[in-house]
């Protein structure tokens, strides 16, 4: 999945991982412009964040639209009125001597995280602040919460100029923004999901592959630490072991359908293998893994179909995307032909020969 997302380091001309990078080094791919903090439910920049604040479902991780982000950024410029840090310190500390101190301190602490272009802007607004009238009130939802408290503990405690978030009962951190209900909800949902994932990971740790007889999740390389689920039965294998076995050449004397495509343990015939980082405990969980895998494949162009230039041997049951260069999807037309004996068959591979043009 990540192989199709442009590497951020590569984008800036300095990726140390080179060809071993797990992200794409192909300029045609789109960078991932999604705010990771927002995904966790806490982004202290709120709507001033330079990254996209969109909810990402598993189906689509990259939202490739450089146009979109550009407009987003420009609108941000208009929205920014005044850094809330300054206004907050004014409100909280009436004595001028300490206020200067704290505001300087908190500015220093927030500035490095800000992109350079807002820095210049900030100076402007603070100058405006002293000369002319400027809105000093910032709606509570726009105020950032203290990132120290959100990540565990704030050293300044009660004297902290920032709002401290409410305690999340699951992760035990003060990271629930009091005035952003959708963010809270998102965070709690994420926490629940993470918890479940961790739990599943713990259970998966003990599971052994019956081909290499090793714990699947203790394999040396990350690529090997994956399960290969079989569609028709529930026996665990490493993805590499089961794939190696299934791609074993039939020349070695093994039957293709009764041995190679079958589960090595129960010999039940499965037509495909699904890679997964965790092992499932219920039928529904397995279904979820299978579905998300299929959705993922559906977003990748089929190399056999080749935008309509080739033919895919899997036809309409191919897991990959069959789309033409203009984005049009291949039309799936099943032709039912009445066979001579009265039964109906589904015709494959009928080519439409254009007879209209000639006449």
């Amino acid at each position: 999945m990540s192989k199709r997302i442009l590497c951020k380091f590569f984008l800036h001309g300095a990726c140390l991982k080179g060809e071993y990078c797990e992200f794409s080094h192909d300029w045609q791919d789109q960078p991932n412009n999604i705010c990771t903090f927002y995904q966790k439910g806490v982004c202290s920049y709120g709507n001033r964040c330079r990254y996209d604040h969109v909810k990402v479902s598993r189906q689509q991780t990259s939202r490739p639209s450089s146009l979109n982000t550009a407009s987003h950024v420009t609108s941000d410029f208009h929205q920014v009125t005044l850094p809330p840090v300054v206004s907050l310190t004014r409100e909280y500390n009436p004595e001028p001597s300490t206020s200067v101190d704290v505001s300087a301190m908190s500015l220093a602490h927030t500035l490095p995280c800000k992109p350079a272009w807002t820095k210049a802007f900030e100076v402007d607004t603070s100058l405006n602040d002293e000369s002319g009238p400027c809105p000093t009130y910032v709606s509570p939802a726009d105020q950032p919460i203290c990132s120290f408290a959100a990540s565990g503990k704030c050293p300044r405690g009660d004297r902290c100029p920032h709002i401290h978030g409410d305690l999340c009962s699951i992760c035990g951190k003060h990271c629930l923004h009091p005035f952003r209900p959708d963010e809270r909800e998102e965070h709690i949902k994420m926490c629940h999901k993470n918890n479940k994932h961790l739990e599943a990971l713990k259970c998966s740790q003990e599971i052994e592959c019956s081909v290499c007889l090793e714990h699947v999740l203790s394999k040396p390389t990350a690529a090997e630490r994956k399960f290969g689920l079989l569609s028709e039965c529930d026996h665990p294998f490493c993805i590499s072991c089961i794939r190696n076995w299934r791609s074993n050449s039939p020349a070695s004397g093994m039957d293709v359908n009764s041995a190679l495509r079958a589960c090595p343990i129960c010999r039940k015939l499965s037509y495909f293998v699904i890679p997964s980082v965790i092992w499932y405990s219920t039928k529904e969980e397995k279904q979820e893994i299978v579905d998300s895998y299929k959705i993922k494949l559906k977003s990748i162009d089929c190399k056999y179909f080749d935008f309509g230039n080739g033919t895919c041997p899997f036809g309409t049951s191919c897991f990959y995307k069959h789309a033409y260069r203009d984005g049009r999807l291949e039309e799936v037309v099943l032709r039912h032909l009445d066979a001579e004996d009265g039964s109906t068959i589904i015709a494959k591979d009928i080519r439409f020969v254009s007879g209209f043009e000639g006449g």
Partner: protein
Amino acid sequence: MSPFYDWICQFYVLQDECLTKSFKPVLVSVCFEFSGASSSKIMQASRARLFKEYKEVQREKAVDPDIQLVCDDSNIYKWTALIKGPSETPYEGGVFQLAFSIPEQYPLLPPQVRFLTKIFHPNVHFKTGEICLDILKNAWSPAWTLQSVCRAIIALMAHPEPDSPLNCDSGNLLRSGDVRGYRSMARMYTRLAAMPKKG
């Protein structure tokens, strides 16, 4: 037995090649190295798996007293097994020796197993000791272990399959319904070959 061993061997071979055929271009040796790398990965996998099986065998020695699996001291791809003839068969009381020769692609390919002890059985070649068993050929599964192969062979001894014989004499006796004849022949060979000599 370490992965370095392969590498060192290759290195020596390379060096030798360079010494004897010093005019050969470097490219040849490079290609050689590449092919070596892919095959050594397979070897590494089979070796890791055999090592696991070895440990498993050591740990569960007492669990199955009918099977005694021993690995060759210097070669992990050569094993021998001693199996006891199943009770209520003409092979009862005999101890049969099996030789395992394991391919480098194991467990993707089945091990080659043959009887070293003479045995009169429809599915075992009388001269070579070759075994006709589907799981050692087209129905092999990588989930089988050497231990479970031994168990399958014991099961085959108890339930001969006369319709696909490697030993025609034995197969014909059973197919013609002469169970008594088969039993006495099998018993005789067990006494002769698989039991300790008296006195």
